[in-house]
């Protein structure tokens, strides 16, 4: 069937901010879908609140609404755009839930919008546990024995029947949020309690434990002609009990015979037919008993999922793209396979390689959190690697993680065997390393299988690595055959050095002298059966290389590796933009990255894609291979965050041309002394600072600067390890706790500026002219990491003189350090003095936000500048505005607010309680949203709506603030009362409010316990759903008992019950403005394209 002719416009819903369980993969899928729909001649209307995405680039859709994904807002968009159809299967659970809401509230019917690619019944029967179970049984499959419960009592009764341990799974939550194993009643009360609250239908499923079973996933596609194909099978190395998003996974499955695999395939196909998945992708998970083979169907997702992105990258079969085509009427056999061009998409990819995905975690950001991996997903990113054997792929994947203490290593002593085996029983982010160390220490495959339930085949493959390492250690000489054998198993030069007592550099020199290099093979969907037309490559120490030769000048762009807190999709955005811009400018672009969730690793994004780890060794080999195949102009390290930046110096030393800001200039900005000199020469003040290579040095520096001080290790992103330190003893403790502080990497100490306005600037510099991209004013005061802080662009309180000072200072820094491309500077404005906090000569996290807020593609311009263009040239070309910049936006320019999304609801401590939610200099947000409107209040309201903490316009507000904040909270709280909200407060706060004429009801503190008549405490009130908003600013510093603890209980209760929570007075002021805007009802919708038209008109008016 060809494309339906009755559709002319389609609304696509994105997945909103990056959160754990729903990350950049939906940018990849949504971008693909939008492009496909547009290429089919359809008008695409997009809604997504996440600015840091390619899909929200104005050229991807015809009308792009960066608006909250709520029924209320989407209805406004539908009313305005009147799309014929809604495609909800490419924006994760968020989009699917939004579609269900729109259907249930009658909005789709009202406006005659047809759901395509999905139908409500299928969504509901796929998601509703009980009906899904019925479907599985009707096709002859098995489900785990289970009970649906709607109350804690029902849960307790059901658990008696099923026997502990039981699995708790809340309905309709993403990433398995709120699920877990309950081993006893205490566990059950805690997990089921939270699960009932998290589920929008207050429903949880309790089920028999299938802990330790083998776990598999199939990715399927179905078309309107009922053709079904399995795109990929995925086997979890970690057996059942660890969320698949947190598991190490392998594609294709390694330990199933054909009969068993076909049985899974048959069940999968029967289930999606029975569920009635309309068209598109779907994912189904199985547990298989390791000794009986009994198969249990766990769940299915009737939409493109995280695993679909992985499967697409693993096979070269673009699930999202094809899902979009199927949704508009095509059948699989009508769609050509992009990679081979000649064969159709109605086939099942076959792999002649092994793919390994490993998750990356951020437990170090949440010190109290329980590190055990469970059925609630906690990882924040992932790396994927491809090799011609499992060991090769595993080794590449582990080194792609770039995380100390997690990867496989042969340095140092392995430790005690029994202790390692014992520790490996509990799944944590370091389990694979423990297994490897245990093998080093002499553990057997049997012992480790007993401890971990990891399939013996995988353990034997790890033993294979260990045996190879031992042979390597014993080899009298590293000759070509010895080295080659190690390289074939994926050993890095670094590991070979560890084993043989040489440095990485010496091993590499030796290897190169022996002419031993990897070759690059193509991901071709067909195991070589047909020629591949798309250069999607991976390295292997294999037979013959498949790198295509060519004369076109090439630029290699290094991506940002696995997503992590502080280095996420924003950097991928910049890399993708660079690729687009350089391709337009006539270069052949070569992308290197190992993150399967991204647009950059779509084989369509760049002319060539290398799916490779971003280590020096792997990058150098790519450069060598590309140089051998044609001219390479240079490598861009500036756009992918700290990962590629950290390679700059060594790449240059190895003779690789690094374009843009020179590695020397990058170092200069990081070097306190040299950078201080740049500031001095330009007459720019910086907070007093010092550097310490040891505690003594740090102490001396802090004494001179004066407490409180801000301390952090050098070369970090996302404020990793950054803290405000109030005393010497805390400083000593800090140095102790931070393993990353070493003589090589000193700790940096800055004066902490209290009560300062923090300002973030992104700018371009070409060596002559500065283009000020945007000036963002933080809503929270200095001391909270810029990534966690909300900000506004244009700034809403800075005067034009301030902006001029910022412009001049930024230019002086750019000139002084020698920036060519992007520069990010953080300032603090305190008592009229503009301090330079830090400067980063690279793309920052805020580049996509600034680009969207000002309708100027900063990353594209930066890439061009790195390749030699000037600001003046780009202005005349039209890539940058002809006049003016982001610092002098027209008066009627829209106001954009960026807000961070924090993952606190994912983490619980070992006691099963939530982790504290107070913001600090350590960044912990996973993503961001953008609220865009004509004035600040409405924009801020949208930003809050988009982070799913809708600010109330009625109900009860609880207020409890630290003494220092009491004065500044009076006015905003009074305003809330005037707007009709009821104020609850603790004793002290209530008294201040009453004396200022604000009526406040006193509630009991948590520490006071319930009253004599059973009067509830504030924490109970929150749990009972009585409170619509909490305002609670922290008292004192970490480690202090008393008020701080009360605040902790309040804040965590708010997180658990999803009550919006304000923790700073500045945040309160912004919240009040937003509530006012909502009460007034002037929160409308406007597309980015419309905003851009306003901006352009304003700019033209300025020119005249």
């Amino acid at each position, binding site marked *: 069937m060809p494309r339906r002719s009755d559709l002319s416009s389609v609304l696509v819903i994105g997945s909103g901010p990056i959160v754990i369980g729903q990350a950049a993969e939906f940018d990849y899928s949504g971008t693909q879908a939008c492009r496909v729909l547009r290429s089919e001649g359809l008008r695409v209307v997009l809604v997504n609140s996440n600015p840091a995405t390619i899909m929200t680039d104005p050229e991807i859709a015809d009308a792009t609404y960066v608006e909250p994904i709520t029924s209320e807002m989407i209805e406004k968009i539908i009313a305005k755009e009147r799309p014929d159809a809604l495609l909800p299967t490419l924006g994760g659970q968020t989009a699917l839930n939004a579609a269900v809401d729109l259907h249930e509230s009658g909005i789709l019917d009202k406006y005659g919008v047809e759901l395509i690619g999905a139908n409500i019944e299928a969504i509901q029967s796929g998601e509703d546990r009980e009906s899904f179970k019925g479907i599985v049984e009707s096709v002859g499959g098995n489900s785990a024995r289970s009970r649906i419960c709607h109350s804690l009592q029902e849960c307790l009764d059901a658990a008696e029947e099923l026997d502990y341990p039981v699995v708790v799974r809340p309905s309709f939550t993403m990433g398995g949020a709120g699920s877990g194993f309950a081993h006893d009643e205490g566990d059950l009360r805690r997990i089921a309690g939270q699960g009932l609250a998290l589920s929008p239908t207050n429903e949880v499923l309790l089920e028999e434990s299938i802990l330790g079973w083998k776990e598999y996933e199939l990715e399927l596609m179905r078309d309107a*002609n*009922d*053709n079904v*194909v*399995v795109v990929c*099978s995925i086997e979890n190395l970690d057996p059942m009990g660890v969320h698949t998003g947190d598991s190490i996974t392998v594609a*294709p499955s390694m*330990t*199933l*015979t*054909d*009969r068993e695999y*076909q049985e899974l*395939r048959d069940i999968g196909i029967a289930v999606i037919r029975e569920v009635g998945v309309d068209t598109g992708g779907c994912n189904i998970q199985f547990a298989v008993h390791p*000794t*009986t*083979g009994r198969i249990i169907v766990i769940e299915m997702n009737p939409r493109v999922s995280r695993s679909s992105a992985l499967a697409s990258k693993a096979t070269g079969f673009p699930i999202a793209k094809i899902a979009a085509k199927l949704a508009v009427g095509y*059948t*699989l*056999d009508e769609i050509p396979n992009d990679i081979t061009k000649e*064969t*159709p998409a109605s*086939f*099942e990819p*076959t792999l*002649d*390689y*092994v793919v390994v995905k490993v998750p990356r975690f951020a437990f170090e950001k949440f010190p109290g959190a329980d590190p055990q991996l469970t059925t609630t997903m906690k990882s924040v990113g992932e790396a994927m690697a491809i090799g*011609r*054997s499992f060991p090769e792929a595993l080794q590449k994947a582990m080194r792609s993680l770039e995380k100390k203490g997690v990867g496989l290593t042969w340095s140092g002593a392995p430790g005690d065997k029994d202790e390692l085996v014992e520790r490996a029983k509990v799944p944590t982010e370091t389990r694979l390393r423990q297994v490897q160390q245990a093998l080093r220490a002499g553990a057997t495959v049997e012992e480790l299988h007993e401890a971990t339930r990891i*399939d*013996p*085949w995988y353990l*034997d493959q790890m033993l294979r690595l260990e*045996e*190879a390492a*031992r*042979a390597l250690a*014993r*080899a*009298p*000489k590293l*000759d*070509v*055959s010895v080295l*080659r*054998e190690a390289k*074939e198993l994926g050993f890095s030069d670094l590991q070979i050095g560890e084993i043989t007592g040489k440095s990485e550099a010496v091993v590499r020199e030796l290897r190169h002298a022996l*002419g*031993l*290099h990897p070759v690059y093979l193509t991901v071709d969907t*067909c*195991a*070589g*059966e*047909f*020629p591949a037309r798309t250069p999607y490559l991976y390295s292997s*120490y294999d*037979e*013959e290389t498949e790198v295509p030769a060519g004369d076109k000048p090439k630029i290699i762009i290094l991506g940002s590796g696995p997503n992590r807190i502080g280095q996420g999709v924003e950097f991928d955005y910049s890399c993708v933009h660079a690729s687009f811009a350089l391709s337009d400018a006539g270069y052949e672009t070569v992308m290197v990255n190992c993150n399967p969730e991204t647009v950059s690793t779509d084989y369509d994004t760049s002319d060539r894609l290398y799916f490779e780890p971003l280590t020096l060794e792997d990058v150098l080999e790519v450069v060598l291979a590309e140089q051998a195949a044609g001219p390479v102009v240079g490598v861009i390290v500036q756009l992918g965050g700290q990962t590629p930046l950290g390679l700059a110096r060594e790449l240059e030393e190895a003779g690789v041309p690094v374009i843009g800001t020179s590695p020397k200039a990058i170092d200069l900005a990081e070097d306190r002394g040299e950078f201080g000199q740049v500031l001095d020469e330009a007459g720019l003040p910086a907070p007093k600072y010092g550097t310490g290579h040891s505690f003594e040095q740090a102490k001396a520096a802090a004494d001179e600067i004066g407490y409180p001080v801000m301390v952090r290790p050098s070369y970090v992103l996302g404020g990793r390890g950054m803290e405000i330190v109030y005393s010497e003893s805390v400083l000593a403790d800090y140095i102790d706790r931070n393993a990353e502080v070493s003589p090589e990497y000193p700790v940096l100490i800055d004066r902490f500026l209290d009560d300062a306005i923090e300002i973030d600037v992104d700018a371009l510099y070409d060596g002559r002219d500065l283009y000020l991209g945007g000036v963002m004013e933080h809503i929270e005061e200095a001391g909270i990491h810029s990534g966690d802080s909300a900000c506004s662009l244009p700034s809403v309180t800075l005067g034009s003189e301030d902006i001029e000072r910022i412009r001049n200072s930024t230019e002086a820094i750019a000139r002084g350090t020698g920036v060519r491309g992007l520069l990010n500077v953080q300032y603090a404005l305190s008592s009229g003095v503009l301090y330079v906090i830090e400067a980063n000569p690279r793309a920052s996290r805020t580049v996509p936000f600034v680009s969207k807020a000002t309708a100027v593609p900063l990353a594209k311009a930066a890439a061009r500048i790195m390749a030699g263009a000037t600001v003046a040239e780009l202005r005349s070309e039209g890539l940058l505005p002809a006049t003016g910049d982001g610092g002098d936006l027209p008066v009627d320019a829209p106001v954009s607010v960026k807000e961070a999304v924090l993952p606190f609801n994912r983490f619980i401590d070992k006691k099963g309680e939530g982790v504290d939610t107070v913001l600090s200099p350590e960044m912990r947000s996973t993503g961001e949203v953008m609220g865009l409107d004509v004035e600040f209040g409405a924009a801020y309201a949208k930003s809050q709506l988009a982070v799913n903490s809708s600010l109330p316009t009625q109900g009860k507000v609880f207020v409890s603030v630290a003494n220092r904040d009491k004065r500044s909270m009076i006015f905003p709280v009074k305003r809330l009362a005037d707007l009709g909200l009821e104020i609850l407060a603790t004793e002290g706060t209530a008294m201040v409010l009453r004396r200022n004429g604000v009526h406040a009801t006193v509630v009991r503190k948590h520490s006071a316990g319930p009253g004599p008549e059973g009067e509830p405490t504030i924490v109970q009130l929150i749990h009972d759903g009585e409170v619509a908003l909490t305002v609670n600013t922290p008292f004192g510093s970490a480690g202090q008992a008393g008020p701080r603890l009360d605040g902790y209980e309040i804040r965590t209760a708010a997180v658990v019950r999803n009550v919006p929570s304000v923790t700073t007075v500045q945040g309160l002021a912004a919240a009040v403005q937003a509530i006012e805007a909502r009460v007034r009802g002037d929160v409308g919708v406007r597309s980015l394209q419309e905003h851009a038209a306003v901006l352009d008109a304003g700019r033209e008016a300025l020119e005249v």
Partner: protein
Amino acid sequence: MNTTQNGRGLPGRQEGAEVSEEKGGPAILVLEDGRVFHGHSYGATGETFGEAVFNTGMTGYQETFTDPSYHRQIVVMTAPHIGNTGVNDEDTESERIWAAGCVVREPARAFSNWRAERSLEEEMRSQGVVGIALKGTRALTRHLRDRGAMRAAVSTVETDPQKLLARILEQPTMAGSDLTSEVSTDRAYEVAPPEGVQARFHVVALDLGIKAMTPHRLAERGCRVTVLPASSTAEDVLALDPDGVFFSNGPGDPATADGPVATMRGVLEAGKPLFGICFGNQILGRALGLDTYKLTFGHHGINQPVRDTRSGRVAITGQNHGFAVDAPIDRPFDTDHGRAEVSYIGLNDQVVEGLRLLDRPVISVQFHPEAAAGPHDAAALFDEFVDLMSAQPAPAAR
């Protein structure tokens, strides 16, 4: 150890160095065009000759190696890890490994599956099947894709590729090879329906290299299956008074299969319901007067899409054929036995994947609906055959 001769180093073992992995001694694979791959012995030692073909299945090595259609072929598995699930006593498609040689990249050191009885390597050794583990299986596959399936040898005893090449060139080519008699049963045997399934039809199956799963699939559907040797004539078949006749898969060049073609003609003339798979499809084609030809590298895998020309629906199928029938794919055509049409088309390359007579109860497919290994998408073809038998007047139920 260096495993391949690729200009980056010469094979050889370092004095005093231990080989980290327990692996076989050196082995070579030589192609008839002179390309040489170095590797290690896997399975039995010795020397073997055959046509090198690649199989792209990611599962099902046990079924594949025991499929008689692979007789006289050296099978290159494109999936790197082979042997992971060992070998069991249930999934085997015949009584022995028929592949002349097995080429793998990463042979399993340990196997892991609840049904496994022994390792693949033990099985190969005990059956005297020579194999080789080499790193360049992809390069070898691409070579065969571009230049076509060709004669090859694997040897663990010969160290001089040139000498081996000379012996390869003495071997017969697959085109022109009549192999069915070498793989067929020498005496008739019967496969009865499983317990609880009533025998409704009697099917005579001509064993041209039959896979165990095929009579099993018929038996599941209430057929008592009498399997006859390939040399059986139409008279032999009809003497058993079957309700339907089945022509199996098998190795070799269909152009040489004059005996089975004559048998097929006799059965067609008798008007019996008839079903052919793979080689059986080619035999039907020839019996109808159509030509068969050799494909460049054939179809060997379990991900092959075919379109049912009537319903337009796509099935993913297991396939294993180096020859194909030449017939018009876009319209019905006349044959010696009435009008016919192509019932299935291979979507990767528009190859004929099935035939149907329009006026007689006769169907055949080039792919493997019995699916061992492979997806079960086309299993309904067995039902279609049963329906053809049901539609006949007065079925002789036994």
